[in-house]
């Protein structure tokens, strides 16, 4: 069985692991590195619970091989809070607006919403719903997730204007 040395930068830290070539990125994160925010919901590329930000793009970590991830820069929910330890605007908005119930989908949902707001800082409701269409939630009915993302978008653009 072929072993690969995989180097990545995850949430600002350089990491190196030695894994079987068939290892999926989600298993490197969860089992090798103890980064358990990204979840395995479906394992079939449908639910988005495993979503991470890879080289500035939202991707599903259950469908990326170790070798494909070599040399990339990754952000997960663990790297989302601000440098001073306060919650990122998206995290705060999900908390304040009941953007979660069981919380299983939340790490993927917030990491996806993070990239969506980078690409489109003022999305319409339709754009938000389409933008998170690769992330399923069994609990909330999406209403409060959409609301949380809208609140965070406003907050982030105010922060930007203040800077």
């Amino acid at each position, binding site marked *: 069985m072929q072993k690969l040395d995989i180097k990545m930068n995850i949430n600002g830290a350089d990491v190196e692991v030695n894994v079987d070539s068939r290892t999926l990125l989600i298993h490197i994160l969860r089992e090798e590195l103890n980064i358990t925010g990204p979840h395995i919901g479906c394992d079939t590329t449908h639910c988005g619970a495993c979503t991470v930000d890879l080289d500035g793009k*939202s991707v599903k970590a259950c*469908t*990326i091989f170790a070798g494909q991830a070599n040399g990339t820069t990754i952000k997960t929910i663990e790297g989302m809070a601000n440098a001073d330890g306060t919650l990122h605007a998206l995290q705060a908005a999900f908390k304040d607006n009941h953007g979660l119930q069981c919380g299983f989908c939340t790490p993927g949902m917030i990491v996806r919403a993070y990239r969506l707001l980078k690409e489109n800082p003022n999305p319409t409701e339709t754009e938000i719903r389409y933008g998170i269409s690769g992330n399923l939630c069994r609990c909330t009915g999406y209403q409060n997730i959409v609301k949380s993302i809208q609140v965070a978008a406003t907050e982030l653009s105010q922060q930007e204007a203040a800077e």
Partner: protein
Amino acid sequence: MIPGSFEYHRPPTISDAVGLLVSFGDDALILAGGHSLIPMMKLRMAVPEYLIDLQDISSLKSISVEGDQITLGAMVTQAELIASSALSEKCPILQTTSLQIADPQIRNVGTIGGNVANGDPGNDMPAVMQLLDATYTLVGPNGERDVKARDFYETAYFTERADDEILTAIKFTAPAAGHGSAYEKQKRKIGDYATAAAGVVLTMADGICTSASIGLTNVADTPLWAEASAAALVGTSVDEPAIKAAMDAAKAIADPAQDSRGPREFRIHVTGIMVQRAIQQAVKNAQ
């Protein structure tokens, strides 16, 4: 679900990749985005011993629009197709179709080359490439050859491509300026393959259709270029009888199996409806 074991390779050039394919024979598979292949490997429907990842070959990543000649590198992602303003100006059906494939995360990774080379009748791009009369460039140990998208698909998962060939590029002539296009896809939810889908490109002059081309997705073992369906529109004002004739001609060649999307008769019925809607939308989009 952990896929079976394999040896991973990431060659820097096309000729290195072809060299690996030749030396490993049919135990090797190409890895593009992996968003069709990895799910198949998890299910053991594909069990390659070697994977050859094309991601380091930068020459496969370009979109070129020169006049009306369009060339897409095999490793261009669906998200990159959507983002290209040059493409959406010359040939918006690529964008319209890409937006109906899977979801944002999958489109960030899935490539146009993987989509057309895969041979899954559910893939949306092959029918569009057939209706655009695109040509695929294949590179193997004996050099390069071109195959028409209309001649490429043999049956589900079997194509004209030999095991030691790489599909490097897709080339086509953009439809005439002022053309109208549409891709209409019936699916049960985001991330689903089509119950039936139809793509249409047509041109109108003084209210008369002067040319038309129609492709159908997921209603047979291969994509279908619906020649007779398009011919039923040419020379007409695309009125109700002409659209009805085009729908009937498309339904006549649709040959879907019953699956979880519905019985055969239903899927043939939906084929007609998708053709109707795509024609109506394309006429609206034409100048």
